[in-house]
Structure formats: C-alpha cells, structure tokens
C-alpha cells in the first residue's frame, strides 16, 4: 500500500515483456563467456588467471541477473537487496582473511 494503487494498476497488469532476441543474445554471450573462461585457464597469466576467471564469472552473473532475472526492469529496491547480501559476503571474506592474512604481523608466534 506504499504505492498509489488505483491509477497505475491497470497498466501494471500487463508486464513489460523483453523481446525474444534479448534472451538469445544473452544466452550466446553466456556461452562465449564459458568458452573464454576455459580458454583463459590454459594460458599462463600468473596471478591474473584467478582475476580473469573471476571477472568473467562476475560478467556472466551480471548478465543473468539483469536480463534473465529481470532486475533491469525491477524497482531499485531489488539491486539494494542484492548488494546488501553481497556486502555481507564481502565482510565475511575480508574479516576472515584479516585474521589469517595477518598472522605474525605483530611478532607473536602463530598469531
């Protein structure tokens, strides 16, 4: 009820439909991404191998989220929800590695 319901409701009943071509383009891009990530794994990029793999995965995920999952057409609240989840995940990772990554920094053996 947070939204004025009467005037907008008639148009809201017919959802916006993405053209079929969008879906097939996204699918093609995802397949290319898969091929690219396999290919990149066989090239020695040093430390960048991980970064490239992760970057491709994030790009693929973004496509799925925006188009297949219709976030592009949702209210801005949905991205906020997603980012709050990812933010907490980041906190989990960063604070966890803040422990293991800093062992021995302050001169106490093993800690």
């Amino acid at each position, binding site marked *: 009820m947070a939204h004025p319901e009467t005037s907008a409701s008639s148009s809201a009943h017919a959802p916006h439909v993405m053209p079929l071509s969008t879906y097939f383009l996204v699918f093609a891009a995802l397949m290319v991404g898969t091929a690219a990530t396999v290919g990149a794994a066989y090239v020695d990029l040093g430390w960048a191998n991980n970064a490239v793999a992760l970057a491709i995965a994030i790009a693929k995920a973004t496509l799925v989220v925006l188009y297949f999952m219709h976030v592009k057409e949702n209210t801005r609240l949905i991205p906020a929800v997603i980012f709050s989840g990812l933010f907490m995940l980041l906190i989990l990772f960063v604070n966890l590695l803040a422990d293991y990554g800093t062992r*021995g920094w*302050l*001169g*106490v*053996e*093993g*800690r």
Partner: protein
Amino acid sequence: MPNIPNSPLFPEQGSDIARSVDHLMLFALGGLVVFSTLIAVLVLVFMVKYRRKHEGEIGEDVYETNPKSQILELVWSVIPLGLLLILFGWGTKVFFDQNRPPTGAAQYWVTGRQWMWKIQHPNGRREINELHVPLGQAVQLRMISEDVIHDFFVPAFRIHVDVLPSRYTTYWFKATKTGEFHLFCGQYCGTEHSKMVGKIVVMEPRAYEAWLAGEPAGGAQAAAASGEQLFVAKACNTCHRPDSSARAPILNGLFGTQVTLQDGTRVTADENYVRESILNPAAKIVQGYQPVMPTFKGQVTEEELIQLVNYVKTLKAADGAAEARK
C-alpha cells in the same frame, strides 16, 4: 600505582602484567560507575519530578522546540566515543604486553589433553598439572593440544591463551610473587573440563634449582637429546644429512632463518613451521626439492614432536658436520 592486596574483588597479582590489567580494569570500572550512576539518577529524578499529575496530561516535546537538541545528541555520541577509544588504546597496549614475550625467556612446553596438563621444563623435567617456575624469570610456554581445544588460564597472571590441536600458541609471564596459583582450563573441553585444573608454584630461584635437582635420577633428559634419538629412530637422518648429496633440506642452522618455498614465498622456520613440515611435509616445499618425504602424521605424538622440534633448534651450522657423523 598501588597494589591491591587481599581485596575480595581482585585476585592475587602474580605478575606485573596482572597489576597493569587491574589498573586498566579500574579505569573501565570508573567509567561504568560514572555512567550508570548518571543514568540511574537521571531516570529516578525524572520519574519522580515529572510524575503524571492528572489523566489528560501529556509530556512536552523538548526535542523539536529546542534547537540545541541535536547538538546535545552529538555531544553524547562523541564523548563516549572518545572515552571508548582511550579504553581501546590502553587495552591494546596491555594486550601486547600480555602476549609478546621478552627475549631471553625460559622455554617450557605444555601439552594439553582431555583432561590434564603435561609440562616439560627446559632441562627436560616433566610434571603433570603442576608447573614450578623460578621467581623473577620470564617464562615462555609453547602449547599444543593432543585432542580438542583447551585454554591455559592463570587468574593471577590475568591472561588466557587457547591451546589448539593444530599449531603452537604461546603464553608468557614473569612471576613477581612466590606461592601457589590456580591453573584452569579456560575453554570447555568435555566431561571433566572442571577437573583439568592444576597449580603454578612460584619458587625462589635457589629453591627452584634445588627442586630441579631433587628429582629421581634418569628422568630428566633434555628434550633435544630425546629428539636426537628419535631423529635416528625414525630414520630422519638418512635424508636430512648435512652434506651436499642430501635429498632433503639441510637442517643445520635452519632454525630461525627465512626459507624460500617452491612458489617463491618466504616463511620463517619457527616451531610451527618445523612441526608442520614433519606432519605435512608437502604443505610447504622448500625451493629446489621434490615432495618425497612421507607424512609422519599419526606416527609421532605431540610430545615426540616437541622433542624433534627442540632437536632441530639445537642444530647449529658450525658443528653440523660433527653432529652428522655421530
């Protein structure tokens, strides 16, 4: 600052650290008393003074009418924050003192298991659930658990350190008072957790020497000497030889140096490194060597590991050749 002798609110102070923890605690306690009294007095005064006089009465919204309200809120956010940061800084300083052992501390070893403490002195003498130490000598305990997580806790020294089954952790203190002090297991470890207790006996240095000397003959074999026998018994010496034909890294003079690993990272060869390299040789492969060493996991006890680590510590680069020919 004064000692707090025989106060019913504070445990005995067995070390200088204990005194500094008590001072920190008194500071925090002062803050607690001031703030909680302030709140309690204000609440009680308002309760009485603004007690409802008649049914239709309502309160006065002072927040909206008074432009200073928000400044007031900022004040009571910022002042506590300042005090908290002081407490944080002081507490961190004390924590460093609690955990960073001074150089030259005597090295003791502690093995925890359900539900007892096994302790080994620098000269190899062993005790169970008791630790005798000399007064005024900095003592460093290197601790490992054979099963679950335990915790070494001596209230008189005001510090806990968990005893892990996966790596050595350290505990240090310098006793400033003779007598007997409680030793507790501070981390719940199973059925007889509350029986995993013992005592720290702080003695005059001369009494400690006498106590060390007064033990049954043959019992005291320095950990390093036992480690040397074990080193041969486990056939470590067939590969870890101090000559250039060795298939394994030369251990002489290794301890305390920086080791370069296969992937180029460098680690310090400390007690945890040596222990891990015996249990999981392949976890950290030294550059230029193949991962051919078998694991000794399950084949050596934690106490034997302590002996081996102690032996490796004694291997000096200079007399390495002599050691190997034995």
